[in-house]
């Protein structure tokens, strides 16, 4: 029916045909077609096309008054005057079931808003025949998945300093006692890493008692009121021996220590043990302990932006030598290296207060995931030392847990 023209134009066409003496056979065909067109209701698109014809006729008539008969021009003028009201009425037409069967309701300018037609989503559905969709509908990663959160998940490192990893054993407050220890069953202090725990260690400054994991489940507390004995060593330390007996409870400490002029212990390291003779149970291990440096000294070190080098053997396996450098400043950092006849590795990270903790991304390549190095800066500006522990998974070696006191 799209080939039909309006019945008004059809009348003009018949008159013109008669005038031009068209053959009767052709005339009958034209009449039959005209009747068929008259039998069907006028369609919005037909009217629009007629209006378009009239617009062209009028446009041509405006430039050439002889291009169309005056009557045709008058009709077109009348038609164009009612265009607006006719289009509004057609837009509101709801096709009946019969008219939907007779014509496609989804053709034309009003089809996009019709509830009887597919919306724009129909174009996104893959064709049942498996036709390749247009290129602009193919999957693409050239966009931000969550553009509203892009700033959150892609922060600019220059804007915010990196957050240091969580401390494995908690933070050490400036100016307080800090220490770490390994714990194994038995009296030798040695054992496989998988059976070795690492815990906080504390020691009375007069050496009278010690404790592990104080205030936590599984706390180990030595007998009290032990009396230390001291003896000389060939290095910067003294040897201290503690032995305590309280009923069936036994405690022992064998340590390298540095004491102040008042006789109080400033730093200590090496072997501890505690057990019960009645139950034949005992725990033991190695420790490193000291008084952490004050916040005032930390601030002074960061202001001067100096570096400090600390070295020394580890306690559980003294064949391992450690070297740690603290780089003070506005964003203090540290680097460290541990060497043993059987292995070596490096680590680095940030210094926060008196604590330093490893950055998982700054271990050497032979260190596996879930490895940690943590420590604390001890002493004062003139006599600094480091208490630290390593809990690392070394490729080809296995897990290593140890503690160490390093001096400047």
């Amino acid at each position, binding site marked *: 029916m799209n080939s039909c023209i309006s019945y008004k134009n059809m009348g003009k066409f018949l008159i013109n045909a008669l005038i031009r003496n068209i053959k009767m056979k052709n005339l009958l065909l034209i009449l039959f077609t005209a009747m068929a067109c008259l039998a069907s209701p006028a369609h919005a698109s037909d009217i629009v096309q007629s209006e378009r014809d009239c617009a062209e006729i009028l446009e041509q008539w405006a430039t050439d008054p002889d291009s169309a008969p005056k009557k045709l021009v008058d009709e077109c003028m009348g038609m164009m005057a009612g265009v607006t009201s006719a289009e509004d009425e057609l837009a509101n037409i709801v096709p009946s079931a019969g008219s939907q069967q007779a014509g496609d309701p989804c053709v034309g300018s009003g089809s996009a808003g019709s509830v009887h037609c597919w919306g724009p989503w129909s174009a996104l559905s893959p064709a049942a025949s498996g036709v390749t969709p247009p290129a602009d509908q193919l999957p693409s990663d050239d966009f931000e998945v969550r553009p509203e959160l892009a700033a959150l998940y892609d922060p600019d490192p220059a804007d915010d300093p990196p957050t240091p990893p969580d401390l494995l054993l908690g933070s050490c407050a400036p100016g307080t006692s800090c220490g770490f220890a390994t714990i194994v*069953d*038995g*009296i*030798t*202090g*040695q*054992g496989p890493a998988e059976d070795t725990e690492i815990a906080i260690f504390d020691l009375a400054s007069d050496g009278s008692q010690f404790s592990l994991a104080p205030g936590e489940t599984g706390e180990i507390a030595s007998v009290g009121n032990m009396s230390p004995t001291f*003896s000389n*060593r*060939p*290095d910067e330390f003294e*040897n201290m021996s503690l*032995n305590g007996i309280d009923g069936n409870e*036994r405690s*022992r400490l*064998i*340590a*390298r220590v540095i004491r102040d002029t008042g006789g109080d212990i400033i730093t200590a*390291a*090496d*072997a501890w*043990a505690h*057990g019960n*003779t009645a139950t*034949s*149970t*005992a725990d*033991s291990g190695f420790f490193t302990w000291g008084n952490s440096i004050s916040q005032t000294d930390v601030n002074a070190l960061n202001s001067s932006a100096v570096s400090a080098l600390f070295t020394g*053997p*580890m*306690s559980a396996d*003294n*064949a391992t030598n450690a070297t740690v450098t603290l780089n003070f400043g506005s964003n203090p950092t540290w680097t460290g290296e541990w060497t043993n006849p059987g292995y070596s590795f490096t680590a680095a990270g940030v210094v926060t207060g008196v604590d330093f903790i490893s950055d998982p991304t700054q271990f050497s390549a032979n260190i596996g995931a879930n490895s940690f190095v943590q420590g604390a800066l001890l002493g004062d500006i003139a006599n600094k030392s480091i208490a630290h522990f390593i809990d690392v998974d070394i490729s080809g070696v296995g897990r290593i847990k140890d503690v160490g006191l390093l001096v400047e």
Partner: protein
Amino acid sequence: MYNRLRMAAIIFALSLTGIQTTTAYAASVTLVPSSAAVNVSNAFTINLNMDTADVAAETPAAHPGSYAGSVIIDFDPALVTYSGSMSGITAGTIGSMQTISFDFSGAPDVGTVRALDFTAVGTVGNTINFGLTDADDFFGSFTSQLPTNTPFTPSFTGVDVQIIPLPAAGWLMLSGLGAIGFRVRRHRYS
């Protein structure tokens, strides 16, 4: 003897409970007498020797190193008495046994830690048994001190000393000398 039995009982109990009682080291502490047999009333020496070369091999800077420990030596006072220096020595008793104990520090990895003087007071045919144990019968007292303090558990070996009579040649010589002296005396008076 009582100490040794007590130590053995503790080690046995610890082994039953699965507690690790010793390292893999083969360090040893032994008593070595100047002679395996002594005459009645004679003085003799017993050395406390230590060999921790195995520990030194495992520990950097441990040779000659510096080692510390504490021992108890027990013996029957009816057979022998301690007659050496009492410097650093603590005397005591355990049951009927006499004990001497002492600490040491800074000892090398291999060698004599201390020489101890005794005098045999028993009778001919007696055997003097010297027992040796760690003074700390629960944790142990032996430590390698360099470069860090590392406890280790050595083995302990005592020693037996026999009290023997003077040899036959000695009696013959004494009788000969007596005979000569007797003849000289008779010749003077005649």
